[in-house]
């Protein structure tokens, strides 16, 4: 409790600044980890659109990235999963049309980077 602010220092009326939840790392909830194989990805954005935790970052690229069958994918592409927030639900793996995401148990990861 001592690390928490006293009543004089809180915003009035219980109001909160926007988007402070990023300080709360839900990655620690994860027991399964999505392992992403970029070489099989068609950057269809299905996983990104369904991810309940906004844990699949994207970027816009003109040069493009190499994906399935060595093809270069331009425009908006997905990046490695953000393990700070990924809860390991497995929706991305289930919905991926190319099956390029596999769920493995956290304990089986070589370097456990769950934070």
């Amino acid at each position, binding site marked *: 409790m001592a690390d928490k602010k006293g009543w004089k220092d809180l915003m009035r009326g219980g109001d909160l600044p926007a988007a402070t939840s990023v300080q709360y790392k839900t990655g620690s909830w994860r027991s399964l980890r999505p392992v992403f194989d970029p070489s099989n990805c068609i950057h269809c954005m299905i996983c990104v659109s369904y991810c309940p*935790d906004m844990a699949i970052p994207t970027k816009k690229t003109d040069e493009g990235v190499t994906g399935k069958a060595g093809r270069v994918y331009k425009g908006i592409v997905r990046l490695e999963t953000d393990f700070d*927030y990924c*809860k390991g639900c497995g929706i991305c793996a289930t919905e991926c049309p190319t099956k390029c995401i596999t769920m493995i148990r956290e304990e089986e990861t070589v370097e456990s980077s769950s934070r």
Partner: protein
Amino acid sequence: MATIQEIVSRETPLAPGHRMCAGCGISPIVNTVVAASDKPVIIANATSCLEVTTTIYPFSAWKIPWVHLTFENAAAVASGIETAYKSLKKRGKITDDVNILAFGGDGGTYDIGFQALSGALERGHKFMYVVYDNEGYMNTGNQRSGATPFGASTTTVPAGTHSFGKPQWRKNIVEIAAAHRIPFTAQAAVHNLLDLYNKAKKGFGADGPAFMAVLQPCTTNWHYDSELTIAYSRLASETNFWPLYEVENGKVHINYKPKERKPIEEFLKGQRRFKHLFKPENKHVIEEMQKMIDEEWERLLQLEAAQVRF
């Protein structure tokens, strides 16, 4: 025609770090609906899973202006915001254009918030109300609501030796909303985000209130594995349990017609709330359910064919 690329390139209204269960479909619904707005969005949120999991003090997952007041009044709060917007605009006190959006769970919409919703629709405020429908009071632990389907077991109407779960049919909230003669009402589901996005665009563009019911399978209380949320939503449409349709200016349009509708068992199986229905003594419940679904689908087709205004 919109694309998934277009949807995901918009900044999401929700930040990560929210406390929804792993595999919950609420945030894709929220992100997709808000992405469809070409103006800044202000949200009024009823007490619900969405509200409690996104604002556990001192952490808010909302990047956009957001207010929660109580359980049953999101539509009334939105009325107030919309009227303030009109007034302050008229008086030159603000310049920004906005869209006003209310979110409620099915409990906060079909049940306790029904009156406030009806009042706001009847008064014609220009706002959109979206119910994400997980078919029960879920943040409070799976109690029955007016949206809970026939035959489902909940903690307040559990299945037992003398009960097969809920003995009533769910309310048809979309038709009830449409009966207010508002410009746009729709039924959507989390698996089809493009459809949801297109509907949300129409809703925001409507000249008056818009209403959408969006199916949101609940991994925790329907009790299935978290990776199957989207799959269950899809099955709900493929079985005609949850048809995707819209009522635009009073006319029904069905957005998805399965080539061959799947039997309802495919949707029911694997969900613990329906597990008891697979006992021999409850065979009649599934049969009755199937009959009702087929009749309702026929009725919807007829409504579409007739093109008679709601």
